[in-house]
């Protein structure tokens, strides 16, 4: 449920480091379970600048609205357009087809500051 090769944040996002100084981000299994059925995603625009710790997307379930915080600072290189038609991909494949955006990272050291899978599991009390 928390792949070891990914990094995580306390706000329940995951990051996958990709080539070319980019990270792909989404929300964790825990986050989608807490939210319930996702019905709408407010995606950022490609090219937008984001700051680590700031909200850059909104994921909405039937019952709740949740801000998604940028785990690193940088520029939005891609957004998952599939989420417009099928927001439920976030529930079905939070680490796969439910990815939210790809960020071109400004400062690679910000990635080090994120959590390992073990640290994240401890954070949510599932260690």
């Amino acid at each position, binding site marked *: 449920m928390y792949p070891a090769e990914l990094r995580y944040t306390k706000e329940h996002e995951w990051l996958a480091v990709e080539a070319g100084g980019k990270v792909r981000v989404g929300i964790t299994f825990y986050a989608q379970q807490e939210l*319930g*059925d996702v019905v*709408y995603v*407010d995606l950022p625009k490609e090219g937008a600048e984001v700051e680590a710790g700031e909200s850059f997307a909104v994921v909405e379930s*039937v*019952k709740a*609205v949740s801000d998604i915080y940028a785990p690193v600072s940088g520029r939005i290189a891609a957004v998952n357009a599939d989420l417009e038609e099928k927001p439920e991909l976030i529930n079905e494949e939070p680490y796969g087809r439910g990815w939210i955006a790809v960020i071109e990272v400004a400062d690679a050291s910000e990635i080090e500051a994120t959590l390992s899978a073990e640290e994240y599991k401890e954070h949510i009390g599932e260690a």
Partner: protein
Amino acid sequence: MNSGLRRTPLYEAHVALGARMIEFGGWEMPVQYTSLIAEHRTVRSSAGIFDLSHMGEFYFRGEDAEANLQRLLTNDLRRLAPGQAQYSLICNEQGGIVDDVIVYRLADGRFLVVVNAANIDKDRAWIEARLEGDARLDDRSAHTALIAVQGPKSEEILNPLTAADLAGLAGFHALETDVGGVPALVSRTGYTGEDGFEIYAAAEDAARLWTLLLEAGKPYGMVPVGLGARDTLRLEARLPLYGNDLSEKTTPLEAGLGFAVKFDKGEFVGRSALLAQKEKGPGRRLAAFVMNERGGAPRYGYRILHGGREVGSVTSGTFSPTLEQEIGMGYVEAPLAEPGTELEVEVRGRARAAVVIKGRFVPGQAKRA
């Protein structure tokens, strides 16, 4: 871990079914068991079973019970035959709504008033302070379990279990019978817009009743349904929720509940304030609207605009699993509640277009009274 919240007799059953439990009006209740959307759709296509044991049940007896209830509630009890129920309101002197209730005239001459869970203590105190003559309120809430079976297959599921034949039971009518051997009051009422039954039984029979109903419903695809889907179902049926759409600051006339206010029955608390409002016309009305495009659901407190001007605010809103659109209700200046009016709802800083609708969001299949 009990955090000081109250639990119904079915708490363990919900946990065993894997329900996610949340706090609701001081109670620990299941919000969903699997997926809110799946539970919602199953009620519309076959059936769902709900634990509503947190709600309140007040029994009234005495020579003056009817006269007292006529004075404290807005609807006219004289219309009720034994076994018949009606929707009604408890109002204060200003016409504000203390609670919305269902009241039954029972076969034995008593009355049963079913109140919202969060208002049990408030309503009991309100009523007790105003009872006159030979009328006694017996609050049986803690001793009563309430389980609802709702959906088009409800009668097929329940009828084989009951001694009485439910085919002849009209909407807003109830009868005393055994359900799988459990004595109960079975009422053809509900909060989903579908045909269905609400079953009142002794608290100590709750677990047994829940289990036998779940078993009986399995071949029909019936599933347990939590408070999450209960809310999306009732909103699609345009049914108001106390605390969101109704409060002591709203009147029945503003809320579109004038059908439950009978001015000609005699004096009742709030009558003169409501009559004055009726004569003038309410300044604001509860409108139901559909968002034109996807963009985030309207939520409680969001501003409603018209021509750039703030004209009201949202009281209920959600994503509708049946329509696959975002829907909501809110109070707006009275003329703007007219069906067809184009409004805007401010969702996360953006004014999003919506249109006021007439009637329900989703056509209802509930049996008529």
